[in-house]
């Protein structure tokens, strides 16, 4: 047995990160019993190696064997035309970049079909000279590319309910995605219009049927906000705001207004419906927080995760994503015993600012029950809170901006489920 060689770093089977490299050496031979070979037959040349396949094409498709990977959305609601959301299949994705076709969506009045040659971007209000820009003209401006996550402030909200929902990483947490966004720094365009010193807010409005509006503080607008024209190298997808969207790094998704058509500089917030009636958090004392912008320090184990089944005992790679609206991810700890003991996971990706980071740690499942958790710490020292801590601080009267630790229970049959500890 190779069991003796395994270096245990925390309770209930968590193993040293060095076993990630040697997973085959330490585990596969003795503990894992799966075999890639069929019972008796030797390995044969497969049929697809014997016929030429189709040639090159103008626009690529994914493998027909991966078509089950879909965004998850609710049923259309006739009283809410085009409204609703779809969630990214987090457990099936790897790395840190979400494919554009699987990036989560949230629409308030559906996806407009915008002809870019007719689309206008207006800057008005407290500026020296109100301006209007064409799409073709905007393409000529110097652009920057930044990898950033985007998270709906309603993501993970159901975890604040009194009893745990039977859910998956996708259904509970799929309103987060990450992409490389390319566009023009908003400050460039605002400078061209000439910002009046009295301007404190920029009211951004979209060209969808809801003309969705949000007010952005001027300091953020002049700092790192983009008018994004490209997403992972291609023009922003219609459901992400084609031909252009605002992109406010690290902040709640709703403020990155899609189908951006107007930026109005004002001295006060415009008090849009989606920054008063919605996206605000009522606290236990019945006061409500307005303008909760940065998304909290957060992590999530995507495998093993809710509704999966472990089908063998042995060594598993526990992996997931971590992010913070206030900086980069410095540390992710994982527990297999419901938070009694913790071990540091390997953070694999470049740990860039306000982007997803991928973490991994090996874990030996010996057939007993376990509760898997992850806890992120960001570059500002913010630590992801427990569910109890969020409930104590924020209550459950509103479900926006929840970033609590997720607990996945593994039972002795290998079933994985969302639980509260």
């Amino acid at each position: 047995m190779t069991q003796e060689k395994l270096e245990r770093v925390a309770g209930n089977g968590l193993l040293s990160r060095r076993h990630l490299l040697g997973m085959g050496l330490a585990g596969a031979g003795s503990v894992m019993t799966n075999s890639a070979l069929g019972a008796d037959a030797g390995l044969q040349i497969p049929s697809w190696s014997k016929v030429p396949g189709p040639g090159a094409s103008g626009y690529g498709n994914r493998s027909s064997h991966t078509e089950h990977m879909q965004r998850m959305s609710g049923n259309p609601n006739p009283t809410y035309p085009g409204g609703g959301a779809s969630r990214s299949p987090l457990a099936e994705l790897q790395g840190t970049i979400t494919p554009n076709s699987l990036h989560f969506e949230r629409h308030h009045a559906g996806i407009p079909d915008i002809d870019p040659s007719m689309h206008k971007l207006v800057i008005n209000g407290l500026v020296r000279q109100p301006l209007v820009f064409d799409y073709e003209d905007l393409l000529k401006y110097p652009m920057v590319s930044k990898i950033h996550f985007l998270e709906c402030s309603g993501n993970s909200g159901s975890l604040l309910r009194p009893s745990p929902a039977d859910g998956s990483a996708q259904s509970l947490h799929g309103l987060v995605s990450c992409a490389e966004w390319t566009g023009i720094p908003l400050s460039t365009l605002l400078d061209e219009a000439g910002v009046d010193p009295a301007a404190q807010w920029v009211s951004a409005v979209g060209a969808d049927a809801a003309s969705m509006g949000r007010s952005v503080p001027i300091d953020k607008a002049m700092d790192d906000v983009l008018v994004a024209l490209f997403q992972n190298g291609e023009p922003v997808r219609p459901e992400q705001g084609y031909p252009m969207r605002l992109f406010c790094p690290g902040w709640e998704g709703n403020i990155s207004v899609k189908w951006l058509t107007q930026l109005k500089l004002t001295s006060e917030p415009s008090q849009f419906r989606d920054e008063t009636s919605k996206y605000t958090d009522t606290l236990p004392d019945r006061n409500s927080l307005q303008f909760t912008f940065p998304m909290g320090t957060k992590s999530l184990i995507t495998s093993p995760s809710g509704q999966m089944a472990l089908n063998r005992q042995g060594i598993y790679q526990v992996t997931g994503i971590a992010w913070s609206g206030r900086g980069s991810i410095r540390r992710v700890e994982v527990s297999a015993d419901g938070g009694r003991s913790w071990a540091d996971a390997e953070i694999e990706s470049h740990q860039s600012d306000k982007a997803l980071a991928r973490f991994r740690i090996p874990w030996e499942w010996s057939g007993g029950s376990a509760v898997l958790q992850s806890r992120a710490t960001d570059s500002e020292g913010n630590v992801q809170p427990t569910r109890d801590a969020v409930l104590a601080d924020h209550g459950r009267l509103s479900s926006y901006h929840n970033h609590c630790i997720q607990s996945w229970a593994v039972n002795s049959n290998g079933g994985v489920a969302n639980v509260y500890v």
Partner: protein
Amino acid sequence: MSMYKRALLFIFSVTLASIGFVSFAQDTVLKLGSPISEEQLSEFDLIAGPDGAGFPSGSGSAAQGKQVFDTRCAACHALTGEGTSGNTVLVGGDMHSEGSPLRTVGSYWPHASTLFDFIRRAMPADAPKSLTSEEVYQVTAYVLYLNGIVDQNTVINRETLIAIEMPNKDGFIDKNQVR
């Protein structure tokens, strides 16, 4: 831009000017926006704020708004405004009730201006921007009336609307300013 950055930029421009590079600096900044006047934007800019900026002329009362509401809104919000689904409730609620308070225009919204602004830009959800300004004033008055905030015959216009004190006007904390 922070004062600090502004100061740096100023020093930078002065340095460039003093060594004769200012025309170079200006030439490299693209300026492709076309000037437009606020007047030309009067149909396009739908932002109606709590300070009264951006409201069109016109007025209306709840008595007039009932017909608009019954024909254009009630299919989704119900004749009484109590809604046909979780996100279409327009009346009722009390922020200090036990359990999770029902949050509506009447119990939750801090500003009356938001009602006009939102209805004009987004409602009715099946045909947004199909109401006249007059109708938006009327139906705004009607939703306020259903919530017991104005009388049937109160005339709602730019001035009277922004003067309304909503029941939960002091119920919000601007987290952006406190942290």
